[in-house]
């Protein structure tokens, strides 16, 4: 608890924690956004989400090695991953749509193991990083430092999020995706090719993960086994935001980031993740109580 008094002595550190939290959370939120989309539209919980991030990271990494600036590498990774997503949909995912959710978890779990091991075979288990070549910003007399790459990540996350909202609201495909999410059978009756919608949604999620992977490689590091962290974290963010609440995902992602930073500072890093998961339990129990009350009124 002595760390708490440090925070009172130097409240500017709180600003640092909040800023770091928001910037860290934004990248997680981006990954969670894709997961929410997939879950909402196709009723699939994608355990391989983190592995898609990993592959995206490696694409940007190898492009950078070949001389492509990471900033351009990110959109390329997104496009490549879109194609990858389509291929994966046509080979595996279409078989598990409309099946029990347990089947989808098993199938994507299998894909995740496969991708991990393939990544390990192809790229080796070395930890790779990309130099961002961006300086850090110093605010408040050096007490608050913000690496610019994290701002780039944050802005990119926001931009992708905004682009998705616009896409879903105003384009034909976006509307078809939303219609399918609401009621797949009705959408089919009205002439929407739901199979194509599913393929596009799945590929879109892969593209989002690909872009996020590039940001991860520039901010932290990539490794064939990093996937689980991102899968778990995005799963959690989607649950906290509530299913189908896409704008809420960004809020939940950044909020959890801030809570995590604060918990790490005050309680120590060993409780950082534990605290966030504890919070998840509290939120779930709380939400269940609210829902139970509503159900009582309905009776």
């Amino acid at each position, binding site marked *: 608890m002595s760390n708490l008094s440090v925070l009172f002595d130097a409240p500017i550190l709180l600003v*640092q924690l909040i800023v770091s939290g928001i910037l*860290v959370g934004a990248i997680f939120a981006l990954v969670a956004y894709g997961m929410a989309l997939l879950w909402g539209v196709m009723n699939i919980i994608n355990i391989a989400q983190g592995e898609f991030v990993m592959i995206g990271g490696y694409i940007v990494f190898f492009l950078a090695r070949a001389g492509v600036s990471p900033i351009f590498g990110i959109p390329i990774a997104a496009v490549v991953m879109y194609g990858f997503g389509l291929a994966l949909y046509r080979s595996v995912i279409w078989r598990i749509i409309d099946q029990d959710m347990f089947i989808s978890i098993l199938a994507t779990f299998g894909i995740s193991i496969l991708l991990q*091991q393939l990544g*390990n075979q192809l790229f080796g288990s070395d930890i790779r990083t990309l130099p961002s070549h961006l300086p850090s910003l110093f605010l408040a007399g*050096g007490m608050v430092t913000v*690496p610019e790459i994290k701002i780039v990540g944050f802005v990119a996350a926001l931009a992708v999020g905004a682009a998705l909202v616009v896409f879903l609201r105003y384009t034909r495909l976006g509307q078809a995706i939303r219609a399918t999410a609401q009621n797949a059978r009705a959408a089919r009756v009205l002439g929407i090719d739901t199979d194509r919608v599913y393929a596009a949604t799945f590929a879109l999620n892969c593209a989002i993960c690909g872009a996020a992977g590039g940001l991860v490689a520039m901010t*932290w*590091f990539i490794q*064939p086994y990093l996937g689980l962290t991102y899968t778990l974290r995005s799963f959690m963010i989607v649950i906290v935001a509530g299913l189908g609440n896409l704008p809420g995902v960004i809020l939940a992602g950044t909020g959890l980031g801030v809570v995590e930073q604060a918990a790490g500072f005050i309680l120590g890093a060993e409780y*950082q993740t534990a605290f966030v998961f504890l919070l998840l339990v509290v939120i779930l129990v709380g939400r269940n109580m609210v829902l139970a009350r509503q159900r009582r009124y309905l009776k």
Partner: protein
Amino acid sequence: MNFKLKTLAAMSVAAMLGAGVAQVASAADDTIVLGAAVSLTGKYATLGHNTQDGYNFTAKRINETGGVKVGSKHYKLKIAYYDDESTSARGAQLVERLIKQDHVNFVLGPYSSALTKAVAPITEKYKIPMVEGNGASRGLFTKGYKYLFAVLNTSDYYLRPAVAILAEEAKKEGRDPKSMKIAIAVENDNFSRDVRDGVLEDAKKYGMKVVIDDKLPPDLNDMSTTLTKVKALKPDALLISGHDKGAILGIRQVAAQKVYVPMLAMTHCDSAKVIKKFGKDANYAFCASQWDSNLTYKDRWFGNPQKFAEDFKKAYNYDPPYQVAESAAAVEVFADAIERAGSLDPQKVRDALTKTDMVTFYGPVKFDSTGKNVGKSMVLYQIQNGKYVVVAPSKWAKTKPIYPAPQWDKRQ
């Protein structure tokens, strides 16, 4: 179609089994087979391959220079491998298979403390001696194992030299070592907790105050909170341990957030290739290592550490990290003990191992009653001008440590 698929599946299974069997040929009359389950796939694949390269390179060298002499007969060394897939359960299973089905009399250790921990009870059960160079956890040597021998320093010794340097520098500045403040950030696993214990013990010895003591969860990929604390509490040294990931995160984020500490010390910088990755951002960091090719030991098979490094690079096309060296040393220790035992009997070789007292290119080897090597000491580098220079132990140090590191705005 279905039939074809089935045939294909059967064929591939047969091929896999065949590959497994082919690796373990039974010992011919003039060969000694050492068994090893190492991580060729999974998360330790890179370091597992280093281990395997170290074993193979040494066995080849010993064979080329006359092999192992037992009585009047010269034997060739042969190593039988399995891939433990970086998982403990698999490692234990495979070592049991090496002993029971492949009838090996001697076992070389796997990569990492976790896997060594899983394997040691098996070798103990069958009374088969194991010499290992990659399990540094202190916990391995408190269980009373009689057939386990480690050529490396246990993990609690990794960052002790850094604490010693801090105390020396404090005295030079005319400060009481008691006034020094230490921040520790370690990954919450066996290895790093041992590193932390060593630091805590030595800090206590000097009366230093530990102001930050963070244990990072293994899935954590960001240590900015710990660094915010460092900024607030201004410790004299920040000690980080978390394998490659810890070294990379430490150097990357300390530089990105321009966190100033007079001493930044960590483990695994060399295997994480921090100089190549971060260039001058890595300058002034202290790095713990088991071994360095600039040391001046003599060796029967390789001559000296420099020769070892050169010959190894010629054969495998990369500079040997210490993981290669310690694996190589394990094979040498076996060869030496088998010759002294004058027998291929596991029990006699085990007894000879307890009396080992030799100098290798990797360092002196002498086992205490728990089986750990008390002959050698850890090496501490500092990165100066983009190069590793040895700064401790002072006996082999070429250069003096730079302490305190210059402020960030004073660096070029």
